[in-house]
């Protein structure tokens, strides 16, 4: 039973009422927190962008315009629900849910708090049961997030196709090509984290990052983090990779034909995904709910139990990334489609693969007791030769293409 669903000590033993109640409570909390956070994120994004562009932003509904999203959502509920005549009815209705459900599911594996200090491993005691402050800790851990993000492609792809119109189809085809391409770089940079942590479980990954020097951001040598950040932005279809919605070129992308509550579901999924991905970045690279600690000194928030303090740290760290995403949107111009594909296939995938090999070589060298300096120099040389070969192959293929006048 326990290994079937999750690795939470809570679920060891038979089916009891208290654990069931705790799990239901967690489901409720994760769902509500997800919805409320999404609502606040929309407000946050509009307000911050307004600030960056010297505008006021939403300020009418509620204090500081906080309830603007609620007002917009309510409006969308009452709008007419259009079903285009040439649409595929079944798939058209299904697509928004295929986008929304993965967005919520991925949130389930994020450790939302807990005490990771002094080897406690994030376990807290709730109603006399030891448990983790996360909805699920499946044995496949972060692979679950990858699986979910590969399912999220369906929502966008089918939405565009089922609309029965050409602009949504174009939008969805280029969106899914983009998401499938960047998934490779995402997975490879994730590999570096798994190599350093030696475990797949998200709680385990957080547990390994006890001090600032152990944060995977530092431990994997910075490069995988930047690759992950770029690939995640592309995976989320957020600026500067928002070719999905390139409103100047595509009318509105895959969701052109959607209106009313179905449009709202796509909107919700997009912002929910941004929050989930930020939380995932924090979990993988910045220690999740771990406090900032250098050496033996730990930055401690007084008067708060350690388990709740984890939640505060997580929230602060996630806010930084949410701000970075908004910042990207306000400052960076959109990539052209061929630049997007070049960046993904020619730079990010080889770079993440090369870095992964470098880390693996270092690890093998350490276990075999080789000289670290020699290992580093040799692996750097191999990478440089590999890069040169890749460039040579590009040059040759480009020359051949130009000579032959091939069609691509």
């Amino acid at each position, binding site marked *: *039973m*326990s*290994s*079937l669903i999750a*690795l*939470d*000590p809570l679920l*060891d033993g038979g089916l009891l009422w208290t654990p069931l109640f705790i799990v239901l409570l967690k489901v409720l909390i994760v769902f509500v927190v997800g919805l409320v956070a999404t609502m606040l994120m929309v407000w946050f994004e509009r307000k911050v962008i307004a600030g960056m562009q010297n505008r006021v932003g939403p300020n009418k509904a509620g204090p500081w315009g906080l309830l603007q999203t609620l007002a917009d959502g309510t409006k969308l509920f009452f709008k007419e629900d259009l079903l285009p005549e040439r649409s*595929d009815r*079944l*798939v058209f209705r299904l697509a928004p849910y295929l986008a929304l459900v993965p967005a919520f599911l991925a949130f389930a594996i994020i450790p939302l708090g807990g005490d990771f200090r002094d080897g406690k491993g994030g376990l807290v005691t709730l109603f006399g049961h030891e448990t983790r402050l996360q909805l699920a*800790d*499946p*044995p*496949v*851990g972060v*692979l*679950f997030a*990858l*699986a979910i993000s*590969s*399912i999220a*492609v*369906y929502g966008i*792809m*089918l939405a565009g*196709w089922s609309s029965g119109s050409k602009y949504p*189809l174009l939008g969805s*085809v280029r969106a*899914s*090509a983009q998401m*499938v391409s960047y*998934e490779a770089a995402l997975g490879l940079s994730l590999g570096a984290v798994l190599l350093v942590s*030696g*475990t*797949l*479980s998200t709680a*385990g990954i957080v547990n390994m990052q006890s001090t600032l020097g152990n944060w995977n951001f530092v431990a994997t040598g910075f490069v995988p983090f930047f690759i992950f950040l770029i690939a995640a932005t592309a995976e989320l279809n957020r600026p500067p990779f928002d070719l999905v919605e390139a409103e100047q070129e595509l009318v509105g992308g895959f969701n052109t034909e959607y209106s009313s509550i179905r449009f709202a579901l796509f909107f919700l999924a997009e912002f929910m995904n941004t929050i989930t991905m930020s939380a995932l970045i924090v979990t993988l690279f910045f220690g999740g709910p771990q406090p900032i600690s250098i050496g033996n000194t730990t930055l401690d928030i007084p008067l708060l139990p350690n388990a709740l303090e984890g939640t505060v740290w997580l929230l602060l760290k996630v806010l930084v990334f949410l701000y970075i995403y908004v910042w990207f949107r306000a400052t960076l111009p959109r990539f052209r489609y061929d630049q997007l594909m070049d960046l993904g296939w020619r730079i990010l995938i080889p770079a993440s693969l090369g870095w992964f090999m470098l880390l693996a070589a270092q690890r093998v060298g350490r276990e075999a007791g080789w000289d670290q300096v020699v290992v580093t120099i040799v692996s750097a040389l191999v990478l440089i030769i590999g890069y040169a070969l890749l460039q040579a192959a590009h040059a040759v293929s480009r020359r051949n293409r*130009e*000579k*032959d*006048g*091939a*069609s*691509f």
Partner: protein
Amino acid sequence: MELVVFVLAAAMVLGGALGVITRSNPVHAALSLVLTLFGIAVMFVSHNAHFLAAVQVIVYAGAIVVLFLFVIMLLGVDKAEDINIEPITVQRPLAAVIGVGIMGIIIAAIVVADDVLVERGAGLASTTVDNPDGNIRQLARSIFSDNVFAFELTSVLLLVAVVGTILMARRVKSNGAGK
């Protein structure tokens, strides 16, 4: 509990499989295939093969069927076909014969091999709270030490397939457009 999971997963697999062959719209058929693949992933989880389940979803549902959908959409064959029209007349009886034959072989294999079948999940490192990665470690040891040769050969095979596809798909104009 296990019986309930099995029945639900089996219903998903069979329902999806029926959908693949009965839906007249290729996109609906591809979506039914996704349902089948998910059902198989659930089966893997209930057999303690978590890693296989994750890979099943990532590779088959997340990449291969997406590719199918791409081809269907780009080639513009996404219209409902009349499945009563028969392009090759013998194919349906032939398919029925082959289907029944394969089913017979599988059932015969199970009946004959009844005594060598092991208990579900036997020999697999089970995942526990203390050792969450035991199963994956065991799989990795098996692939990268005992069967490393077959594994590497498979990757070469895939690479050859990719290179071959590009070679065949590339249209070369001998008196190029660039001149």
